[in-house]
């Protein structure tokens, strides 16, 4: 089952954030559909739309891999199913 999800990364800008996050995604078979990224007064903010292949890697497994990355690079990383945003922000 392919599940669309939104990945948000927030924290102090530093070298290697995109590399670390996308490596973890690739290792877990997660495909990146779209990326938006900005830096506002030194705060790095990245939003990705991704597809999780739940047949290969469970949603929870991807989340815990990202939690490890978050811990290692000192950023806040959240992976949520996309429907929650569609439900809350679209009539």
């Amino acid at each position, binding site marked *: 089952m392919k599940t669309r999800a*939104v990945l*948000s990364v*927030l924290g102090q800008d530093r070298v290697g954030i995109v590399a670390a996050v996308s490596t973890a995604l690739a290792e877990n078979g997660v495909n990146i*559909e*779209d990326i*938006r990224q*900005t830096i506002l007064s030194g705060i790095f*903010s990245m*939003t990705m*739309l991704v597809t999780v292949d739940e047949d290969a890697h469970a*949603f*929870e497994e991807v*989340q815990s891999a990202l939690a490890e990355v978050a811990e290692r690079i000192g950023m806040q990383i*959240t*992976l*949520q*199913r*996309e*429907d*929650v*945003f*569609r*439900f*809350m*922000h*679209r*009539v």
Partner: protein
Amino acid sequence: MLHISPEEIAETLVMVQQQHLDIRTVTLGVSIGECAADTAAEMSRRLYDRVTSAAERLVPVCETIEREYGIPIRNKRISVSPVAEVAGRRACEDLTPVAGAMDRAAATVGVDFIGGFSALVHKGVGRADDALIRSIPQALASTQRVCASVNVASTRAGINMDAIARMAHTVKETAALTADADSIGCAKLVVFANMVEDNPFMAGAVHGSGEADVVVNVGISGPGVVRAVVAAMPEDADLTAVAEAIKATSFKITRAGELVAREAARRLGVSMGIVDLSLAPTPAEGDSVADILEAIGVERCGAPGTTTALALLNDAVKKGGAMGTSSVGGLSGAFIPVSEDAGMVRAVEAGALTLEKLEAMTAVCSVGLDMIAVPGDTPAETLAGIISDACAIGVINNKTTAARLIPAMGKKAGDRVSWGGLLGAAPVMDVSKWSSAKLIARGGRMPAPLGSLRN
């Protein structure tokens, strides 16, 4: 392609991480009609099996939804059919063991509260109702997770004043039996007018007889989110603009509830019941309905204008929420418990909020006289008078009202009681010294109002 803007994603994250957006409760309603038996012991055995098998997956499923959607589900709970209704088919003895079975079942499946130790006596007290009411003090004193509720009035039937008098004594007895824990038993006991069949919130949740066998009901939360939205508005924004902003926010909160309700029902393989559009505060700082009223414009909750602000809030929440789900149900209105809301506690301590003002506020919001500690020596007749006033507001205005009063044994006005967790802590409030004894002694039933003749 991202269909959702990064700003909208950030808004949701801030709501959850900073403004306490969460689903207050996912409550599984379970019919226990099949548990009727000749003895309370046999009924208890059947009830334990029924509840533990129906709710076996409730907690793990909710935890998965929570993780995948990133929206915390604060409580997972169970409501069962009113126990007196089921007991009335066969056994009508001491029902305390049934409460014990409910408690054990709740512990086994990992929920913090189970509601439905209940009776509906608005028109008359049946044999099983009588047995249940008699069992309440012991049942609440000997269990951790069981919640009891009794419906004593309805718009169609009027107010059963005899039942109210009886419930006042029951409240006092429960307080006495749990005196060593600040009379916590009373925090798990609600007296209702116009009780609803699909309320997911404790302590008043029951699974009504008009419901399917097992249903998922969801109670939303989010006072912190609404407060942040109102607080961010310019000082000179008029009340129409305030109502509009609350409406838009309520829509978003409700959608989160709708999504969780659909997913939980789908994954559990049961029917989706309702989404209850209630703003439910918690003792956490910032997660307060009183704070919203103060952000709208009263210096302290309880000041003149508070009822107006609450009426506006309550109405705007419903309007936004009604767009967000087609399954509105439960109590659907802002809750104004005292001990569970840090802003309400502050207002009481400052002398701004009194019992009488809370009664007025009851007329324009959900339930009402909720989690209010009163002096332990308050006469039963006075408690009955307070309960009947709440009922009168509900019956005449065709809405649900309730009283959850806690006579704090050995304490007087100004002292403090503390139950911890979601139940919070509160100052003991002053109660009128004038007696209601003659009114209560008259007993009987206050007839249904003219407004109930609607056919």
